[in-house]
Every structure is written in C-alpha cells, then in structure tokens.
C-alpha cells in the first residue's frame, strides 16, 4: 500500500493507506485532525494541506473555486478533495479545533456567591455538587457548584468538538441523519470533552467527579437532539421547527457514566421550546428576569442568534441564522475572542490609521466580533466605507496591520458581517411588529453571549446591529444561558419559573413573515435601525 508522510511541528508521521480514499479520511483514520467547517464535500475550503512531495492529482472544481492563485502555486490542496494513489508527503496547514478548555471568565454565568433565599430546591446537606452546562454550536461552557452553599467551585469554557462534522447546525444534522455512526459519535463527543475538563477541574479544586449528583444541560434544540439522540433528522424538516421537540434524557446512567459523575446522578436536559428555539433562550429569559417589565428585548448573539421580546402579555421568540461572523469565523482576518484578537478599535482623530486593543497584550493575530463592529463603525464614520458596504475612494480593502501577520478587512468580509447583522435586524423588527410596539417603547435591551462582552454599544447602534435606544437601556449580560441553567440547577423555584416562561412564549417563524425580505434588505445597510413604527 502507498505511504503518506505527514509533517507536523517538526516531526514526521508515516501512514499506509488504500489508494483512492480522500486524504481527509486517511488523516482522520490516523487520528490526525484537519480544520473543517463542512462534512468533507468541498463546501468550506478550510481543510488545507501543503503537498511537499508526490503526485497529488488534479484540482477539483471546488478547489478551483475556493483556492487562490498563490495557494495553487504553493501546492496547497483541500484534504477532502484529493484522493492520493501513490506515496505522498504533506504538511497540515491548520489542525483545527482542539478542545482546549479555559477557565470560565468570572463574570460568566450567575454571580458566584449565593443569592439570598437560595437553597430552596435540590440542595441537600453535605458535600453535594452540581453541574450546569450550556451546550452551544461552537462553544461549551459549564460550571460546578457546591449545592449546599450555593457557591461556584469552578467553571470552564471550551470548543464543541462536534465542529469536525461542520461548523453550522444544518451540516451537523445532515451528517447525523446520513449515518448512525456519525450520530452516535456526535452524541458522545461533547460528553467526552466535558468529562476530561471536569476531571481536571475537580482534581485542581479538591473534589471528585463522583461527588456530582445533579447535572442540567441547556442548549439550542439541535445540540440537545444530537446529545440525546432524539431523531436529529427530524429537525431538518421545516414543519418541526415551530413545534415542541422532545429531547428527553432517556438514559441518565449512561450520561452519568460518560461524564464520570455519580452513577445515580440526576441528569436532565432542560427541554427546548421548539425545533428552532432551544432551552438556552428560555434560560436566558430566566436569568435576565426579562419578563419583569414589558418592552424588554433579549438578543443572544451566536452563529444562530436567538431573540425574545416580552410585551407584558406574550413572550415572542425566534431565531435567525446569520452565520458565524460575530464569533470571528468566516471573516478572512477574523478569529474568536482570545489572546491576539483585536477586540476594540477606533479611528485616530488625526493623522489616519486605527488604534486598536489586543486581548492578552500580545501582537494582533486577527479581529474578533466586537473589534469588527468597532472597525466597521469607525470606517463608516470617516466615510471610507459607505452605508452599502462598499469601500470608497477606489479601494477594495482596509489594512489594519501591514505585516506579521497582515490583518486586512476585505469587501467580502464586510458583506458577511452585513448579512449576519441583517438577519438580527430583521428578527428584531418582526418581533416588534408582532408585539405591536416600536423601538421607542423598549425599556431594556439585553445583549447576551460572549460576543457582547466587549461590545461598544454606540458603535453597534450606529451600524444598526442594536436598536437605537438610550445607551442606559442596553445591558451587557454575558452568558445568560449558563446563568439560567445554574438557576435551574440550584433552585426548584427557578426551575418552575422556567416552565412558566415556556407557557407564555409564542414562536415566530421568520421565513414565513411577509416583511422579512424587506427588513433583511434594510438591515444590510450599515446605518441605524429605523426608530419609528415597525
């Protein structure tokens, strides 16, 4: 059989393989991961490898479309598109998401000391611990609580390892519906990842995972369906999207074993609201106390952004798939928030150029979502970017940092951002329309999700990402899905409150809303959202 040599970090690995198999499959079979955002059908163009030696065959149609001329010159190929027949030597360009867990930021989730009057529910005396998990498409966050004292012991945030089956929900559901193997691997991956991080965190904090006797999961419906194996294929059918969807945790002992927690632990996936509105949104509504005053809007930014509007009688909920631009994915110079990310930027008042702030005090490697909002708003303000997303003065890009590495905002990046923003804008305006209120009647705008953490509200309003309300009415709330999950874990009263929220909610299907396309078109413009009647 032919032999494949893979060069990673100065070492070489040799793998024999049957000719004709896609390179990506050969690599995955040997436990070598390549970055990917699709199921390996050539859609994402991320699984890049450099061919060092050997015959790599002809470029496919997808490669000609997605690779640049200079990449082709350098013998860069997409691993899913080439099927080597003979000996080959390659270098993996990007190894993809390793589930590197980091400490959960202190401000994530619920306040870390006990709320007054807590302990009404499941807490029992002695050393009983609980686990709260927010299972997101891109990220997983969890925290471990001392149930009796209502204190957080530790928390971790990491990437969802399912991303190797695709970065978006549709691709993952498709992969799961195509093969039961895929489906069972996808169900297991998050649990294995949490298991590892949980064991580490427990060891560091002097407790044993088996001391954990309660676990609660919230997440979007697709993540919960994949986790619990509740017919993910059904979620691809539009008729399921607005119906209640059952994701019962059928086999708690199996889950407990996979997580490494107490074998009699109660493991509960908080039921999603419907096919495309998950329990993460319900948890967010709970954690923000959204229903305490009418005219309250919640936007949970993510790859799939979810929104809720309370008008005093009905909680209008929806979700809009705007793409992963807010997480820094899909943008050429984009990166997730973290060390090396430009998270804030402002145009210098004189002399040209942009001042920027980098997370971790290191040299900039890319721009995360909040930095992108600042950069685009600044360029709109100076007139270098027009409201329609075109650069003015004959340029097609804007260089933020010239080299090492070059960071440059290109027109297609602006386009992707415009689309993500338009999906949110259309969602917000349709919810306002359903509730029959206008922007002026909004009393609270809760900005949720990691993206919001460093968001400059004035800039976000200037380009129409948030409705134009008095800045004091905008609250940056962080990960409210995890906070709500923690509430449910710690308090029976809160768990009951979440069920009350469910009863008041009414789902809005944006794709059936007659004015969606008009609002979407409006939302593509980099300008404030209209303030008048919806």
């Amino acid at each position: 059989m032919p032999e494949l040599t893979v060069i990673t970090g100065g070492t070489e690995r040799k793998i024999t393989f049957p000719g004709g198999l896609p390179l990506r499959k050969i690599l995955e079979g040997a436990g070598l991961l390549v970055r990917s955002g699709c199921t390996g059908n050539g859609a994402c163009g991320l699984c890049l490898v450099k061919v060092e030696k050997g015959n790599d065959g002809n470029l496919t149609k997808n490669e000609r479309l997605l690779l640049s001329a200079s990449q082709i010159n350098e013998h860069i190929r997409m691993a899913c598109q080439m099927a080597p027949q003979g000996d080959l030597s390659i270098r993996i360009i990007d190894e993809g998401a390793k589930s590197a867990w980091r400490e959960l930021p202190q401000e994530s989730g619920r306040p870390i000391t006990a709320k007054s009057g807590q302990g009404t529910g499941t807490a029992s005396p002695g050393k009983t611990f609980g686990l709260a998990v927010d299972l997101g498409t891109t990220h997983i966050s969890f925290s471990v609580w001392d149930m009796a004292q209502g204190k957080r012991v530790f928390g971790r945030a990491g990437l969802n390892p399912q991303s190797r089956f695709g970065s978006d929900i549709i691709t993952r559901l498709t992969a799961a519906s195509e093969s039961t193997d895929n489906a069972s691997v996808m169900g297991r991956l998050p649990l294995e990842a949490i298991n590892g991080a949980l064991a580490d965190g427990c060891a560091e904090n002097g407790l044993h995972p088996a001391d954990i006797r309660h676990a609660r999961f919230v997440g979007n419906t697709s993540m919960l369906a994949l986790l619990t194996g509740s017919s993910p294929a059904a979620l691809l059918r539009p008729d399921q999207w607005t119906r209640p969807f059952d994701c019962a945790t059928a086999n708690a002992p199996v889950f407990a074993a996979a997580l490494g927690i107490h074998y009699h632990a109660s493991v509960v996936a908080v039921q999603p609201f419907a096919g495309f509105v998950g329990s993460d949104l319900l948890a967010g509504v709970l954690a923000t106390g959204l229903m305490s005053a009418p005219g309250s809007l919640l936007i949970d930014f993510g790859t799939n952004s979810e929104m809720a509007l309370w008008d005093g009688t009905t909680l209008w909920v929806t979700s809009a798939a705007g793409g992963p631009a807010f997480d820094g994915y899909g943008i050429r110079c984009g990166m997730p928030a973290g060390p090396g990310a430009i998270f804030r930027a402002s145009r210098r008042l004189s002399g040209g150029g942009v001042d920027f702030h980098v997370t971790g005090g290191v040299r900039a490697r890319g721009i995360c979502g909040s930095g992108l909002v600042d950069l685009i708003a600044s360029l709109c303000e100076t007139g270098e970017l027009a409201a329609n997303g075109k650069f003015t003065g004959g340029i097609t890009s804007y260089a933020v940092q010239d080299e090492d590495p070059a960071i440059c905002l290109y027109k297609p990046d602006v386009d992707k951002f415009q689309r993500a923003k338009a999906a949110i804008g259309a969602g917000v305006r349709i919810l306002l329309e359903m509730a029959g209120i206008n922007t002026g009647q909004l009393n609270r705008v809760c900005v949720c999700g990691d993206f919001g953490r460093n968001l400059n509200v004035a800039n976000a309003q200037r380009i129409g990402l948030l409705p134009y309300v008095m800045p004091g009415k905008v609250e940056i709330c962080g990960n409210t899905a995890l906070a709500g999950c923690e509430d449910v874990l710690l308090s029976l009263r809160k768990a009951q409150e979440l069920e009350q929220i469910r009863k008041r909610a009414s789902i809005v299907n944006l794709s059936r809303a007659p004015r969606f396309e008009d609002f979407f078109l409006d939302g593509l413009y980099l300008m404030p959202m209209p303030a008048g009647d919806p």
Partner: protein
Amino acid sequence: MDKLITAILDGDSAMAVSQARQLNASGLSPEKIIIEGVEAAMSALDTKCTLEDFNLLEIMLAGRAVMEVTKLFWPSGAVKDSAKGTVVIAALEGDVHDLGKNILKMVLTGKGYNVVDCGKDCPLQKLADTAAAGRPLAVGLSGLITTVIPVVRQVKGALAARGLDNVKVFAGGAALKQSTPGMLNVDFVAESAFDVLRFLSGLGNGLG
C-alpha cells in the same frame, strides 16, 4: 441608456424607473430597453460579482431596480412573449430559504427570460404541473438544505411523466452546488445565478 445602466448598478430603483419611462416616451420599445439597458447592466454586474468582490446588498438592490423596470412594462412582473423563453424556478419542499432563488429570478428577468416562480417549500407535483403548463426551456432548483437532494433527484422523472423529457433541469444554492449533475440527476449544477445565464444561453431557445 447609460443613465439607466448606471441607475441599475447603483441600485437606485426610482431613478431606473424614471430613466426607463423617459426612454420609452422617446420611442424605444420595452424589448429594446430590456435588451440594451437592463441586460447590459446585468452583464456588468456579472463581471463585478466574482468571489473576491461579492456584495449581497449590491445584487439585491440592482435586482430590485430590474424588477421595478420590468413591472413598468409588464405589470404582472413576467416578461410576456419573451423571445428567450420561460424558466420555471422553485425551492423544493423541505426548503424554506429562498433568497438565492429570488436573486436568480431577478437576474433571469433582467436578462429577458420569462420567469415563473413556484415559491419556496414547493411540492414536486406543483413544480411539474407548472412546468407542464408553461412549456419552459428549463427548470431551476435552488436549495440551501441538503435534505432536499432526494427530491431534486426526482424532478427529471416527474417532468418525463408529463412528457417534458426535453426540458433541461439545473440546480444551485449552498446545499447543491458542491454536487455533480450525476449525483443530483440534473443537467447542470450552477455556481451562481450568472452561471445559470451562461448555461441557458448555451441551450438556445429552440423550445421557447
């Protein structure tokens, strides 16, 4: 005519309509205005909209301007008696995303095709019945969700059952464009709406 082309490329619907009205008042036929103005603008947009320089807003605005100009001459929105022929398009059952289909509709209308839009979440039978009534040159399918692939594969059979064996079928959209025509059982898989234009012009209009 240049002013009309500029107005369309700028996405200025009101200006495009007023220019088209003036040209018509000065004696130019609607057909000539479509061919020399609107189609020229579409060709310019095609060259601009490479992967490097794509902007959805730009295309949607230009598309709206085209639709407004078309509506001025043919209020029902369709180019009647189009010399180029009819194209029936749909997002099939199971797919409620039709932004791509709508762009295709605008581009094809702008190029003078009579477009019959079956809408989104369209049942296969409805598509085939519409095609049987419209005697189209081709049937176009747009798909964002890969689960529509099994239905896409049945389209040719449903057309053949109505005696429409010679109607060409093409597919495009995020879920379909990675596939080969063989996998989808269609005649052509398009990268973009403009790619469809090249395919259709290669067919001629013998069936129109």
